[in-house]
């Protein structure tokens, strides 16, 4: 048996021995995930006649100058040496509430993309665009991004149903940013209504590093978006902005931040638009460890029902173990602002267009706060995607992407 297969089987055994996420787990209380069998599939991930996975990661070609600063490696996790390279430096699954997802991922992992970005000669921002084409019906892809100290990068990461068959995806993304490096991570996850997705983004920041995430997510049969941010070095900064859209489907959005050093800053911003019988849960959980002098924390969660009787659960949570910090959190739940809607209609804008414009504005504001400015939104096309997604959500039916 090769090392890769042994590693996968060990993960599977660990999962079998320790069990799946209990229904009582606090983080998943409102939307318990489907059990392990779904994420493992019912097949051997390393059959003797294994063929390369269909689909996979696609990286848009880079201008020559940018290409010189980026190493991209597509690695086959069924090959022992490549598996070691793919997983090098990544933390083990651990034993926390979400660990079963990580074990299931390790058990099914077959391929991944590993990117390493060096600082550009003139310090400019490197723009990368990766797209995930669903491969197997049940898959566990991996994306690793390492930023060398001082590197500056924008990463657009796209996952869309695109007419593909329904699939199950347990994705792990690891971001490791060296000192003073920065990443603007623009994520689009618009699955088909029957898809079952669990995306886990782990971010570790060195001193003075910056991580900014804007996520546009649509509902599906099960859709978990979980980001864990470790700010264990001074002056690290992380901000996330999530716009969640679901009609008759679900999204569980979880962001956990750990402040473990002085002068660290974090912000979590969420706009959840739900309609029909949608279930949307937004969990923001920030911990400030002892000794985190002048940590600055903000959480801002908003839920807007746009029709029907959706269930929107907003859970801001702060755990503060140090005195000298600034922290603010809030959650608001309600209709689109009536005064703004009337103002727009009084200027001649049709009610449906006014609603779309206002909702789009709220979403753009969430992203702008996460990214510090709106330029990356425009240049990456994320603003246009946001507008399309919100228009589709508010249009009659409010249905998620149907599979072709």
């Amino acid at each position, binding site marked *: 048996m090769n090392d890769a297969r042994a590693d996968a089987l060990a993960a599977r055994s660990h999962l079998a021995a320790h069990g799946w996420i209990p229904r009582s787990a606090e983080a998943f209380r409102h939307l318990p995930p489907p059990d392990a069998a779904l994420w493992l599939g019912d097949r051997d991930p390393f059959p003797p006649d294994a063929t390369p996975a269909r689909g996979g990661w696609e990286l848009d070609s880079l201008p020559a100058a940018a290409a010189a600063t980026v190493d991209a490696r597509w690695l086959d996790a069924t090959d022992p040496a490549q598996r070691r390279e793919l997983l090098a430096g990544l933390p083990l699954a651990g034993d926390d509430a979400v660990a079963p997802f990580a074990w299931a991922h390790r058990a099914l992992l077959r391929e991944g993309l590993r990117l390493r970005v060096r600082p550009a000669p003139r310090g400019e921002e490197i723009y990368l665009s990766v797209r995930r084409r669903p491969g197997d019906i049940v898959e566990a892809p991996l994306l690793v991004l390492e930023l060398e100290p001082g590197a500056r990068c924008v990463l657009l990461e796209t996952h869309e149903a695109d007419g593909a068959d329904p699939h199950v995806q347990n994705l792990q993304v690891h971001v490791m940013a060296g000192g003073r490096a920065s990443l603007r991570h623009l994520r689009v996850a618009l699955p088909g209504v029957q898809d079952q997705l669990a995306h886990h983004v782990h971010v570790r920041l060195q001193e003075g590093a910056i991580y900014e995430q804007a996520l546009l997510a649509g509902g599906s049969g099960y859709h978990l978006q979980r980001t864990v941010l470790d700010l264990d070095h001074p002056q690290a900064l992380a901000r996330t902005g999530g716009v969640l859209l679901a009609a008759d489907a679900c999204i569980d959005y979880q962001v956990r931040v750990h402040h473990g050093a002085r002068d660290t800053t974090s912000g979590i911003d969420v706009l959840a638009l739900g309609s029909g019988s949608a279930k949307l849960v937004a969990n923001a959980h920030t911990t400030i460890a002892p000794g985190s002098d002048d940590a600055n924390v903000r959480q801002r969660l908003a839920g807007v029902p746009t029709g029907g009787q959706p269930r929107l659960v907003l859970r801001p949570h702060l755990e503060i173990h140090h005195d000298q910090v600034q922290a603010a959190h809030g959650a608001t739940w309600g209709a689109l602002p009536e005064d703004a809607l009337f103002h727009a*209609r*009084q200027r001649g*804008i049709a*009610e449906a267009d006014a609603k779309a*414009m*206002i909702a789009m504005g709220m979403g753009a504001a969430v992203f702008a706060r996460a990214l510090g400015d709106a330029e990356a939104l425009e240049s990456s096309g994320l603003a246009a995607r946001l507008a399309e997604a919100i228009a589709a959500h508010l249009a009659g039916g409010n249905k998620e992407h149907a599979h072709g």
Partner: protein
Amino acid sequence: MTTTENLLSVKNLAVEVGEREVLASVSLEIPRGRLAVLMGANGSGKSTLGLALAGHPRYRVTRGKAQLGGRDLLALNVEERARAGLFLSFQAPPDIAGVKNNLFIRTAVNAVREARGETPLDAFDFLGEARGAAGRLGLPEAMLNRPVNDGFSGGERKRNELLQLALLQPRLAILDEIDSGMDVDGLRALVELVAQLRSQGTSFLVVSHYLQLIESLEPDTVMRLDQGCIAEQGDLSLAREIARTGFARVAETVEA
């Protein structure tokens, strides 16, 4: 404009807000190109009249009629009233987070143009017009690119209302305390804009407490609203009398 054809005709209008009747029976007429000033004590219902005519859902018309250019205003929804040519400037214009001012105004202008059978303006043409109008109103051009009223001062919000007025070119503009918060340059720009639009046929109903502005606007009519009705109507001398004696004194005189 010299025509006396009524653009706005309101007859016995009664309006409730919640369970409270704010307007009992308001009747007024404003001919095309004319300017009427509406005065009244705080809480007399001046803003209610504007919001009810504009179709705000919280302001329920229980009796009466209102016509704009012969069309039954009350049968139209909010945006149809706007497209028919009714513009209301807000006392406290709201923020619209994340929506750029130029996108908001261009969408509005094109919705109105479409209703008039005119071709929509493309972004380039619109921006040229908007920059010109903003310059005349003293609104920094950068504010076109910022979210609507986001971080604007009180005066800037009012100038932004004027910008929308200038670009939408309505048939009837109801200006509800447009002067509050504006500096002297803003007031001058307001007077010039009103004169220009009036010369093109726009009618105005201006709510204001300040005689200096009222005099500058050269109104055709001044009305006083009291206890839900137009209690008195006259020319500029009525505004001067109110400024001199106050609303309570004027009301006593009328009753006597």
